């Protein structure tokens, strides 16, 4: 018998009596799957597919606005829906535990590790005193936290992101549950840390015969971890098969799309006649640390500490690094949004780092930016027309009204949107559409260089491919250069001519894409590449 059986689970948003929405809306529509002890089932799907709702339904933690209208969930033959709320509390954390996506917000910042991990043990096992302490130390040891004895009295903010996720896992494992529900456990982490956490999960489920429901949107993770795969879309399971079979011969069209959304490793050839556009030499961005009433500068935080690179006309340079490596700060410094501490930036033969605000305005037109989060990059109170026209008006391009209108229309059509979208507000569009609008806004002023600050990391995989393709088409048409800031190694080969790897404020390696990706010289680059999950399709 399987450990967890889900049969015909249906979750609906009930019809509201006097609101616009008069119909019941199914969020999850009659899905079934099962997990055996010691097995990892990967539930894959894009945002909004209902995979997180399924996970919450298993622990009966759904928000009150949603209701489970059908189906059965059995944990080791025990129907969870027949339990009272009080009986359910005996299951949560004791027999089935959950790991959340964001360790930052899942840990209580005012409690020590001993209090947080200990809470579950006190509640379910009644441990106290020395026994409690030993149990917590053993748990921390098991999840690989160094010096667990000292760290008992630490607070979450003293730990790194990866360590916090380890603590979350320790909390989940505290009462030796049979089932572990992991909701995107590594999405908020860097690739090297992701690798460690996934290894840890793998090792623990073997050692403890744990059933794991792993929810993710990353096909690389699925390929490395899953024994079985269930693909979800619009609240339905499209395909449900063993992992190795799934990657060799996916049955459903959508599964194939998901697998192939990972760009393969064919490298872009470097430019034959490079002509320098932007040269950055010895760039240092140090943030002063101020202290006291008079705000004396007592020291500096070295966000970027001596970075040099060059971007040629029509070229894409990928700037790769983990969070906190200072890669976004480089982009902001080029845009003159951060003051330089030292170094020199030359754009098209002209030094631009010493220009005043007014003098720099001439270069605002030539250097543009696309941001990561399509939801915060547009003013929610402006129409698309106003958003697109803002840069043109500010930089004095297309002053004539009709001319501007015509240009707005061609722009929208160019990025694959319709003319009637001009008068809508940003909240009416999906993430991918918004990112297209953000691209249209950047190219509206006909720049030479666009700084793309993780433009695809907030998007689903299938949409990511479309946006990247659009960026490449535009590069060919308009001869654009990109500084492509990213942490996602999988998109680089297909996209970049050259790669620069950044770590803790300095460039550790740069060079042509193929050579860096295939024969990395620096140990950090090697670690980064080794950690990136890849799909082994068996081909």
């Amino acid at each position, binding site marked *: 018998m399987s450990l967890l059986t889900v049969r015909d689970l249906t979750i609906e948003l009930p019809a509201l009596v006097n609101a616009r929405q008069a119909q019941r809306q199914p969020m999850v529509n009659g899905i079934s799957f099962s997990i055996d002890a010691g097995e990892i089932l990967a539930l894959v799907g894009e945002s909004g597919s209902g995979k997180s709702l399924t996970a919450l339904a298993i622990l009966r933690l759904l928000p009150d606005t949603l209701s489970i209208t059908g189906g059965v969930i059995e944990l080791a033959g025990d129907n969870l829906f027949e339990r009272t709320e009080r009986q359910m509390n005996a299951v949560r954390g004791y027999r089935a535990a959950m790991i959340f996506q964001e360790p930052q917000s899942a840990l209580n910042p005012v409690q020590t590790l001993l209090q947080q991990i200990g809470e579950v043990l006190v509640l379910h096992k009644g441990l106290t005193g020395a026994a409690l302490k030993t149990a917590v130390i053993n748990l921390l040891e098991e999840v690989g936290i160094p010096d667990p004895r000292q760290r008992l009295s630490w607070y979450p903010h003293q730990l790194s992101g990866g360590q916090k996720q380890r603590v979350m896992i320790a909390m989940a494992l505290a009462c030796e549950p049979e089932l572990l529900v992991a909701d995107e456990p590594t999405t908020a982490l860097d690739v090297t840390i992701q690798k460690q956490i996934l290894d840890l999960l793998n090792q623990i489920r073997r050692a403890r015969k744990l059933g794991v429901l792993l929810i993710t949107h990353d096909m690389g993770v699925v390929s490395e971890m899953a024994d079985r795969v269930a693909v979800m879309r619009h609240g339905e399971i499209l395909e449900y098969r063993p992992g190795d079979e799934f990657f060799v011969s996916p049955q459903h069209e959508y599964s194939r799309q998901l697998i192939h959304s990972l760009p393969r490793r064919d490298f872009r050839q470097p430019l034959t006649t490079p002509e320098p556009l932007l040269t950055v030499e010895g760039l240092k961005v140090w943030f002063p640390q101020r202290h006291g009433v008079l705000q004396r500068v007592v020291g500096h935080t070295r966000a970027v500490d001596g970075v040099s690179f060059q971007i040629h006309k029509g070229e894409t340079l990928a700037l790769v690094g983990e969070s906190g490596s200072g890669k976004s700060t480089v982009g902001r410094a080029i845009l003159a949004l951060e003051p330089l501490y030292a170094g020199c930036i030359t754009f098209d033969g002209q030094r631009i780092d010493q220009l005043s605000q007014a003098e720099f305005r001439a270069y605002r037109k030539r250097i543009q930016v696309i941001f990561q989060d399509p939801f915060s*990059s547009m*003013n929610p*109170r402006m129409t698309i027309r106003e958003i697109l026209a803002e840069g043109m008006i*500010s930089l004095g391009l297309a002053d004539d009204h009709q001319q501007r209108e015509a240009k707005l229309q061609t722009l929208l059509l160019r990025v694959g949107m319709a003319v009637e979208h001009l008068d809508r507000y940003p909240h009416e569009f999906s993430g991918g559409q918004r990112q297209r609008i953000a691209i249209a*806004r950047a190219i509206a002023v006909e720049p030479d260089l666009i700084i793309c600050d993780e433009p695809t990391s907030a998007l689903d995989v299938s949409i990511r491919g479309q946006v990247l393709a659009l960026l490449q088409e535009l590069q060919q048409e308009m001869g654009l250069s990109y500084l492509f800031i990213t942490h996602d190694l999988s998109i680089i080969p297909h996209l970049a001519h050259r790669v620069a790897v950044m770590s803790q404020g300095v460039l550790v390696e740069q060079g042509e894409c193929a050579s860096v990706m295939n024969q990395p010289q620096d140990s950090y680059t090697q670690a980064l590449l080794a950690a990136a999950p890849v799909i082994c399709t068996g081909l």
Partner: protein
Amino acid sequence: MLAVQPVVLLSDLLIFALVAALILFFVQLARDPLARGRWRSVFVSRIGSAAFLVILFYVLMALLDSLHYREPLPAIATSGSVAEPASETMTEPVVHYSQEVKSVLDAVLAGLHGQDETTYSEPFSIYSFARENQTSDDGNVVRAFPRLAHAGSHLQEGDSVAADVWQRSLKSVLTGVAIMAALVILHWQWRLRCTAQGCGLKSDDMGAVLPWKTIYITLGVLVVGACWVLELGQYYHILGTDKVGQDVLYQGLKAIRTGVLIGTLATLLTLPLAILLGISAGYFRGWVDDLVQYVYTTLSSIPGILLIAASVLLIDVYIETHPEQFQLTTERADFKFLALCFILGMTSWTGLCRLLRAETLKVSQLDYVQAARAFGVRHGRIIGRHILPNVTHLILIALVLDFSGFVLAEAVLSYIGVGVDPSMASWGNMINEARAELSREPVVWWSVAAAFVLMFILVLAANLFADKVRDAFDPRSAG
């Protein structure tokens, strides 16, 4: 000869400018679909609509009370008393106007006004509250409760007061209901015709979704109440009289203008300071932020009452030393009142300023502000187009919440004697005057009760409305 002389006080101008600005603001809002949707959700709720109507009723009273005029005095035959040659008065008769400044509300409430008794009397009573020496028919002096001069003077000896009150109440309530019914039927017809012809109705028209039943009921209660007060006020003192025999209800109603004005004016005065300083502190940071923070931390650590009391003293001195600028008592009271609004506004902007600074710090880090900077958009424009619209919800919520706070603050300040001029009707003054009588037995409760009820209704309506506005505009609760 009978023409009246209009008197325009500074606060009258302000209140009309305010109402005009509010109307303009709503017209402007109607163009923005996002804002319109939010306001719609305020008015679709029954509480929101009812509270808005009650506030509107109060504002209407305040507006009526802000149309001031002076009545001409009857021509005096004895021209010699004036130190002018008789020949000139013959050729050009000079019209002298009363020193008393009246308002349109006084005209509407003529039945309540000008029927002063000598001292306290209970609500609906026709006898005074204090015993007096009276000479009876047979020449003996007895101490008894004398009949009031005006209240119930139409009654014959032996008529029942209760029966008369019932009869008149019934009549006035029926009149009110009839007026309301006529209104409802007219409106119904108009709506039917509108839907039939589709004249000017948009797809998202408010008419279809407003809670009409609640609106009718609220309006009905207000209309019937007004009819009842107007009818019975002519014959009785509905809420009794105060120490010098003035009608308490009349004073309470006159105090509405003071309450409404102090609420709106003081709130509006806080806005420019709070918005300007708060947003510049959050946006420019650095030394601007330091400066603004020092100012508001300092200001908010000085006890507000102390600051206000000192300022009011200054104003008093100014009025005393410049008597030539204030011809009428009303003008003097008005000046003092505006000064109080100003002081209240100047001392209470720190809360909103702090909120706005925090929100601006957050918003100015968002990508769209960075994108605008990457486009070379100037600071002023970034603040106007990107920051201000995205902190408007905070301003709106603070505006409505502060309103009720200031109404209550006025009552407290007048109570401790640093509020509005004693000659000006205000709830605080009413409470202050009745304070000593609360310890008397039998207690004189009606002055305090009247002020309490009138203030309670206004503040409750404002708070309920503020709650709905917050629900609609706060992004966190809107989801």
